[in-house]
């Protein structure tokens, strides 16, 4: 939990709206673990005022680099996309409680939707290093947003892709791939599920997960101010009526405990 101005090493567009930014930080490369996020000040200015939370997309410890993968959706990310290598990126972090990888399991099934793909790369790298078996079910709207999967395949990951435009993998949603997977595996107690994506996807996966006998971890998003549990802005409602803070108690929660309105 520190603030650091990290040098931007590279910054490239993956698609028209998705960018990858690589920054240098020995400390972050050492401290981050999968599922955590950085709280980014996109520029030194009072507008945009607040920091932007972005998941740690990848860590390359040997190079002391941290990667973020983000989509331009509004004012802050649009400005961020204009940053040049050599400039500094001011970040707070690592923040939040990432995925629990201590829990006993052999096989990880990872369901990612849209920009939910961002934290998944770091997660998979770590799981493979731990010797776990990995199935990745990744769904996006536009097939161009699928990248990097050949390397995962080469390392033994079972990669299943769904795209809404049908240009890569199956035409459809992640649930179209998850349903057949779970039909076989739902009572396999050596599994652990991981899910990252928009709320509507989390909520559909929750319904499916409810019928499985293994645990599920979900990474949530909520608007944030402080990023460390102080402002009480980023609450998530649990089914037991408790309210937790996404930034501080999460962003990773037990999927089955989350209360979704829809």
């Amino acid at each position, binding site marked *: 939990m520190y603030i650091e101005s990290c040098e931007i090493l590279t910054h490239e567009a993956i698609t028209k709206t998705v960018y990858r930014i690589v920054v240098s930080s020995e400390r972050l490369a050492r401290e981050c673990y999968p599922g955590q996020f950085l709280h980014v000040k996109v520029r030194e200015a009072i507008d945009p005022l607040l920091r932007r939370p972005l998941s740690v997309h990848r860590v390359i410890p040997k190079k002391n680099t941290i990667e973020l993968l983000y989509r331009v959706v509004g004012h802050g990310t649009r400005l961020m996309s204009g940053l040049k290598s050599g400039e500094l990126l001011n970040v707070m972090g690592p923040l939040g409680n990432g995925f629990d990888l201590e829990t006993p399991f052999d096989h990880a099934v990872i369901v990612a939707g849209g920009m939910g793909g961002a934290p998944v790369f770091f997660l998979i790298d770590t799981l493979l290093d731990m010797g776990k078996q990995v199935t990745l079910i990744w769904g996006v709207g536009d097939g161009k947003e699928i990248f990097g999967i050949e390397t995962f395949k080469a390392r033994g990951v079972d990669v299943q892709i769904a795209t809404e435009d049908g240009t890569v993998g199956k035409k459809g949603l992640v649930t179209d791939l998850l349903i057949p997977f779970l039909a076989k595996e739902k009572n396999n107690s050596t599994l652990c599920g991981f899910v990252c994506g928009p709320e509507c996807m989390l909520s559909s996966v929750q319904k499916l997960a409810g019928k499985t006998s293994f645990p599920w971890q979900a990474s949530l998003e909520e608007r944030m101010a402080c990023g460390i549990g*102080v402002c009480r802005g980023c609450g998530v409602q649990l089914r037991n009526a408790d309210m937790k803070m996404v930034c501080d108690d999460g962003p990773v929660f037990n999927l089955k405990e989350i209360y979704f309105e829809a």
Partner: protein
Amino acid sequence: MKPDLSVIIGSLNLKNPVMTASGTFGYGLEYADYFDPAMLGGIITKTVTLEPRAGNRMPRIAETPAGMLNSIGLANVGVESFLESKLPELENLKTAVIANIAGNTVEEYCLLLQKIANHPRVDAIEVNVSCPNVEQGGLAFGADASVIEEIMHCMRPETDKPLIVKLTPNVTDIQSIAAAAESAGADALSLINTVLGMGVDIQTRKPLLARITGGLSGPAIKPIALAKVYQAAQAVSIPIIGLGGIMTGEDAVEFLIAGASAVQVGTLNFIQPDGALQVISGIEKYCIDHGIERIQDLVGTLAEA
């Protein structure tokens, strides 16, 4: 030569004029990883209520031009847990601790005061009569001079510790309200709480906040806060603690010149966890550059244009 930054608010001695605002600094130690809170002039804890509160529905924060909206709704651990688990943690913290309270009724204010006023770690009490995000009390109380008087008349006999009344800017006439709080026994005033605001997500046509309106804070409101501080300073002789949009030592100096004896920083904490320290050093630098030996010599020194 180091300027003397110390400030006196009633019977309270602050080592410097910079405090962290209620609701933006937790219960005092949340930012301890970033800097030592003992360096602050004081800490104002999150508003506590009689019962714990979860607060309002999500979303309850949003960004606006140079500002942010919140409708947290006084989410807090409740006064019992505050006394049992939060205050004891501050026991050895070498700075002033000001507990902020809010009730749904006049009686609740009194009850809260009775519960906390004698706690040795409570150095002063800030009375929040200005939260825009609650159904009962809150802003409606703060906009009504007679309710403030009632609350003060009920609380004043209960304690000798400084009572600081935190006022809302969402009123027609801040001067009469400030004067009412003073004559009812307030030792100091703090202003401003957030300004009522709203935003709309034009894609979904939903309000940015589930509760529709909320409280605006941050740089956008600085000019409004300065005007209220200035006006209140003309109407009362008790010290005023100024806040609203302070991001730098220079901003803080504006408040001091306009009539505030001390300041608080709120939203800045979220953006720059050690921002309050930078405000302190900015004030100090200003004093050195301008040959000001005691910060108190700056207070209310607005020159004629």
